[in-house]
């Protein structure tokens, strides 16, 4: 596992271009591999930061737009996007009601 503080940045490996210090091919290969991994790690880190920033921006935008949904404790059965139909339509009944539904 790479630790960022311990991997040299590219161009600061102490090696000149095309030169292999001490002719140690294995060391050069190891450094090249570490350098590549470092780049990948940095890219991954930056991509992660960028995605977090995008998520935050999108979240703020949606929260601002959603005047009726996010964070609201809605009345029972209410959903933000549609008028909710009843589980069952009213059924016919004879006689008087226990209560009236009329305008007030």
């Amino acid at each position: 596992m790479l630790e960022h503080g311990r991997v040299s940045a590219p161009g600061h490996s102490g090696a000149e271009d095309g030169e292999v210090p001490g002719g140690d091919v294995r060391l050069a290969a190891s450094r090249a591999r570490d350098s590549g991994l470092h780049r990948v790690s940095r890219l991954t880190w930056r991509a992660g930061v960028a995605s977090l920033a995008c998520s935050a921006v999108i979240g703020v935008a949606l929260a601002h737009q959603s005047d009726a949904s996010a964070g609201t404790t809605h009345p029972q059965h209410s959903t933000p996007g549609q008028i909710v139909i009843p589980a069952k339509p009213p059924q016919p009944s004879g006689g008087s009601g226990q209560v009236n539904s009329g305008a007030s």
Partner: protein
Amino acid sequence: MTIADVGRDTFDVFGTTAVLLVSATEHAGPAVAGAGATARAGAGTRAVTAGIAARARAIADRELAAVDLACSRFRPDSELTALNDAADGRPRPVSPIFADLLAAALRAARLTGGDVDPTCGRALVGLGYDRDFAEVRAAGDAPPRLTGPVGPVPGWQRVHLDLAGRRAWLDRGVQIDLGATAKAWAADRCAGKIAAQLGVGVLISLGGDIAVGGQAPAGGWRVRVTDDHAAPPDAPGQTVTISSGGLATSSTTVRAWKVGGRPVHHIIDPATGEPVRSCWRTVSVAAGSCVDANTASTAAIIRGPAAIDWLHDIGLPARLVRHDGTVETTAGWPRDDGPGAAA
């Protein structure tokens, strides 16, 4: 100790009559604590006691008081009054309940394409409806408060709500009224809380805006659908049963008065800022909640003939009554074929 299958309580709130029915036939809810709260009336049935009824009423009173303080247009200390008085485009902190009430109003506006619009406050004031309706009615024929055409309402897009931050603001000059949704929202809230906290079945009617919660009695709650919520039990209309959700009725015939010799009512057409001239005198709708039912019934009055196709397309059961008393129904609403069915 009073024991009944259904407890009934009637009281005044929001300038109208509320009816609270409680049925204790449910066993799934939490146990009700307190001495003498319940008694067994037979296998599978827990009778309603005075204790349960009192608890239900206390919950309703608490919730309704909170709603009134949040959004009464006639209270100088309400949050709505403060918001209307400011109307300067600058955010103001609001309570959670006011935020939810405003969210419900904006949702209704959005779902109806702006037909149910909360920015009709100035139009209502212009018609003299700037105080409790009993006072408006008692004042008789009064001169209009505003002269000249009111014009279209500003539009719900000029009302702003930051729900997460609990802030709201109105563009300059915008005045809102939450009457189209607040009472129904309050009914939903009361029914939900009473059912959840007491483990009972409940129906609450706030001036005819009805919400039910918990387990309904066998056969459902019987509701007489009519023009006026205060009509006698044998008033022209239709009796149906409901077991869940809500049922609401909007009408141009009840909350009506005169201004400058002109008959007016409280359902404002946002396109004109005037009381709507609808082909329907009364529309009743059943929905998954009372606020949805009231949103649809109000929108149907405003939409006029186009409401039939709209309600069909949504699948909302509705009963629409023309001025001559003829009735149309949609989406499974039962036909008017019983005695006393004439509208």
